């Protein structure tokens, strides 16, 4: 991983205190993989860096895009940062999603600020393996949306909108919300994914792999979905974090491995874990 002074080249502000930050960080952009994150120093007044997952990395332009929501003091300071300012950024960090099986169909499920790593995964899967992305939010999505021209089995009714940048790349995508957002499935995003999976024939469904990032209730629902349909599920987790390099063991999650409990570090042992390794999601 690299520590660099990254210049802010764009900083877009969206509804619901969501923000998209584009940083010039060539070494990070070159090495970043979906599921990994960067550890951002938001100011000299805040001791700890803030982990933010990577939404896109453009190795040619040397930029990484981050989507974050203001949830506390650190992200509030980050939201006030201006284009042209520099931020100390450490990354890319963590074990990425395993996207290595061309024969799988990757079902990407993101909720809120858990959507970014799913977008990154989808973009990297283009031309390699099948994928479909389902995104859920209770506030307006911070992306350009448009009606999808790609049919998806099982998806009915109002769920017509897709993220335009994914549609452009030929990645099928649908949205879910409980907030009555136009063009979205009314309900939780794992339920939308479930309708899709149930509409697939047995052979097609059996090659699906569930990848998820989002709030804990959403991850619980995805883990349940994986168990119900006997599909592998991988969850990307968050925890309060200090060093981000595996030195302090502050950011742990309990795992069960060969019948024994361990605490694994979310920063370097994760953030992606198989759902069946996590007793919390059993």
């Amino acid at each position, binding site marked *: *991983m*690299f*520590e660099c002074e990254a210049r802010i080249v764009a900083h877009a502000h969206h509804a619901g205190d969501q923000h998209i930050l584009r940083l010039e960080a060539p*070494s990070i952009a070159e090495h970043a993989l979906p599921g990994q994150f960067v550890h951002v*120093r938001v100011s000299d007044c*805040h*001791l*700890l*860096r803030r982990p933010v997952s990577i939404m896109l990395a453009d190795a040619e332009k040397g930029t990484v895009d981050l989507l974050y929501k203001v949830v506390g003091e*650190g992200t509030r300071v980050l939201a006030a940062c201006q284009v042209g300012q520099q931020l*100390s950024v*450490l990354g890319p960090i963590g074990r990425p999603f395993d996207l290595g099986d061309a024969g799988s169909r990757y079902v990407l499920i993101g909720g809120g600020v858990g959507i970014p790593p799913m977008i990154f995964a989808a973009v990297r899967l283009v031309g390699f393996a099948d994928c479909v992305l389902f995104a859920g939010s209770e506030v307006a999505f911070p992306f350009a949306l448009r009606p999808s021209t790609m049919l998806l089995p099982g998806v009915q009714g109002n769920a017509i909108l897709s993220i335009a940048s994914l549609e452009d790349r030929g990645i099928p995508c649908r949205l879910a919300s409980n907030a009555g957002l136009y063009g979205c499935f009314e309900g939780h995003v794992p339920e939308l994914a479930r309708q899709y999976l149930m509409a697939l024939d047995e052979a097609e469904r059996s090659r699906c792999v569930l990848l998820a990032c989002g709030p804990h209730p959403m991850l619980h629902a995805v883990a349940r979905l994986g168990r119900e349909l006997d599909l592998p599920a991988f969850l990307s987790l968050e*925890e*309060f*974090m*200090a*060093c*981000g*390099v*595996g*030195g*302090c*063991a*502050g*950011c*742990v*999650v*309990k795992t069960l491995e060969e019948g024994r*409990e*361990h*605490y694994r570090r979310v920063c*370097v042992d994760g953030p992606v874990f198989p759902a069946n390794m996590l007793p919390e999601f059993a």
Partner: protein
Amino acid sequence: MTVTDIDLSVEFAGLRLQTPIVLLSGCVGFGDEYTRVDGYSHEHVGAVILKGTTLEPRLGNPPHRIYETPAGMLNAIGLQNPGARHVVEHILPRLPHDKTHFWANANGTSPEEYAEVARIFDDSPVTAIEINISCPNVKAGGIHFGNDPEMAARVVEAMRPMTSKPLITKLSPNNADIAETARLVIEAGSDGLSVINTLVGMAVDVDKRIPVIANVSGGLSGPAIKPVALWKLHQCRAIAARHGIPILGQGGICSPRDAIEFAITGADAIGLGTGLFLDPLLCPKVLDGLRTYLERHGLGSYAELVGSLAS
């Protein structure tokens, strides 16, 4: 004299350290975690102290284990470690012992456990053993060894016959008389002191009305504790100097200036811990800052700066 002529190597408890920087236990895993960071080099540090180790494996505390506080952070990791034998058999062999010193950090719930940990590390490539006396003494109702000077000394006494390696006792700021603890652990056979360990604190989640840290209390570290650390170092300096015992000064060092303050107050070596979380490449910056300062003040070595505080 130019900055390149300045000698930053130090003598510490009979060991030659290539720089005065020591990476602190609990902040750098089992020694090689920071090698993940491009630009990090063990050659910038005099020693790396491994994560706190007990006789048997420990799972550690449930999350949340850490929390940011004003100018600091709380941690309650709970001594997660795979046990001393595992560290010696599986972790130490893969560390680059030719690049820097690696020191153990011994923990226990009884003097006997500390002694056994010392015995296990005695037959290993670590070149010194730091003693974390801020552990609860189970036979004394959970009082921390470090909070009672007599109990602290008993830990050192128990470990002393088990090893010929230097013993460095990490003193707690959470007791009434740190200088008295320093005196007793030196008399019990400690070859060096680490000053200070974290201060105990807590934080509250006002939405859930629960302690943020699952363990309720945690150790406060970072710039918030720097003035306390300097004062405790100052209090220990006289007794340590009288016995010719070096001190590893630590507590919130985040910049070259912080390191210089500790050196002037009497730190024979300077510990970096939480400061690495801000800046994983802090070590070369501190070394550059030290060289520049020493040159500006006409000093040829770090050692000349140590304890130069005017009374």
